[in-house]
């Protein structure tokens, strides 16, 4: 049994396997499948300043080795979260990180302030990369100066671990990474979805109501790995890596590229048991390769 503990920005993860925001609800839905205490952590669904209905149906299209979604941050807002959801989350024996979204800097700040008060929530993940909302969302995540600005504004009010989730829809992911480091981020999460589109040739219409949506799943894994690797070489803060992770081998690839912790997103839809299986698989891999600790493979890619 290898040592799976990972410590980033002072946060202790019992293993590097967490679940991605928007792909795991508030965790509760998975209690029927397994003990959530098996996970390193859970990134819960985006929370915004107030209630959002999200986008119109249809919100989903299957694509080759992936899917498009345009959920659009549907959630009941931060007040509802604090009052009704937070108390239930506290029961889980794993790290709970809240994904914070918004349309304006004020909204991000408001949500972050509220979450800051919640005991037992050690970190937020600032989602400046959602492609599925008209204003805000991805807009903050594709221009370095605004990314710095929103990060700094949240940094000023948020006292615990500040993670910022980056959009892959940019020319230079390292420039974006540096911009949010400048703004005071403690940890970087990458990547969110790629902006894509699906068309039904028979009806000659877009498949999803918003025409374009966010592409996730194994299709984007090569892009995600590349970005994790580029950012790992460019900045000094820890990386949470994701994008198309379906099994332990994929997870290990992300760690070799530089991720300290990984998130499992779309894979939860294909196999609800996948996350604990990945924990198991990482352990087996480390044992088989005689590696004592998961920490040893972070960024350990051999490139010469």
């Amino acid at each position, binding site marked *: 049994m290898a040592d799976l503990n990972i410590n980033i920005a002072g946060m202790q993860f019992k293993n590097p396997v967490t679940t991605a925001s*928007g*792909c*795991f*609800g508030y965790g509760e*839905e*998975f209690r029927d499948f397994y003990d959530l205490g098996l996970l390193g952590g859970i990134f819960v*669904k985006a929370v915004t300043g107030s209630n959002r*209905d*999200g986008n*119109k*149906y*249809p*919100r*989903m299209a*299957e*694509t*080759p*080795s*992936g*899917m498009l*979604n345009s*959920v659009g941050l*549907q959630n009941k807002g931060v007040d509802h979260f604090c009052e009704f959801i937070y108390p239930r989350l506290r029961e889980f024996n794993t790290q709970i990180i809240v994904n914070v979204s918004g349309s304006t800097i004020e909204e991000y700040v408001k949500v972050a302030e509220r979450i800051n008060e919640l005991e037992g929530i050690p970190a937020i993940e600032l989602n400046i990369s959602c492609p599925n909302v008209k204003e805000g969302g991805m807009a903050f995540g594709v221009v370095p100066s605004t990314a710095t600005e929103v990060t700094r504004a949240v940094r000023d009010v948020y006292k615990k671990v500040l993670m910022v989730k980056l959009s892959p829809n940019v020319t230079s992911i390292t420039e974006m990474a540096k911009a949010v480091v400048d703004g005071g981020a403690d940890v970087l999460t990458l990547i969110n979805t790629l902006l894509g589109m699906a068309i039904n040739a028979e009806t000659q219409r877009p498949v999803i109501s918003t025409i374009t949506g966010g592409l996730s*799943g194994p299709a984007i894994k090569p892009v995600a790995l590349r970005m994790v690797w580029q950012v790992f070489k460019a900045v000094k803060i820890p990386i949470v890596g994701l994008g198309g992770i379906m099994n332990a081998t994929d997870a290990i690839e992300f760690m070799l590229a530089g991720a300290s912790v990984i998130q499992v997103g*779309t894979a*939860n*839809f*294909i*196999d*609800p048991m996948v996350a604990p299986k990945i924990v198991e698989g990482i352990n087996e891999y480390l044992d088989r390769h005689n590696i004592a600790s998961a920490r040893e493979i972070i960024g350990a890619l051999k490139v010469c």
Partner: protein
Amino acid sequence: MPVILPGQFVQVLVHNSPSTFLRRPFSIHFVDYARNTLKLLVQVKGEGTRHMGMLAPGDTLNLVYPLGNSFSVPASHKVLLVGGGAGVAPLMFMGDFLNQKSIRPDFLVGFRSADEVSQVEEYSKYGKVYLSTDDGSMGEKGFVTQNPVFNQSPLPYDRIYCCGPDAMMHAVANIAAEKGVACEVSLENYMACGYGVCLCCITQTDKGNERVCIEGPVFDAARLKWQSNG
């Protein structure tokens, strides 16, 4: 097997189909606890169902089940089950379930034409069967909504349970509303997860966006805002 109720569904992992990435949802067609069997009734629509059609006896299938809510238990014995095409799937299970509660429902099933009609004798074990085909090649000609069953006034039913294509369910729900009969429909929205975490499968109801996979697939038709589906 766990306890399964009529209206619930399974999520099937389709192996060996390169273009089928997500699981595919199917209503539970029949459950035989004594024999430990669960039946699905699958219509071939695209690659996923085509590969399911290639399964041989003895092959294994990876399922997540039982998912979703179920049809309500009716308070009266006057029940009509309406189904169209592959949408008839859950009716057999519901018929058996009602029989066990000493209710013999009427069935109204619609198909495109005679060669698509199946299992009519099976249904008649559980209740009286009315049949429609679009082309009139068997039973009444026309859509199920044109079946003489619906010409009766007042309708001799206290509750209608309906599943099939969206347009058909909407039309049946409209008739039910007009005639003042309670109606439950089982929606077939596109799903990614099937267990409530992705928020892709929503339908607009009087409570806002609800998840068809968790709050449904069965809804009181009166609560639905149909325009959102598709």
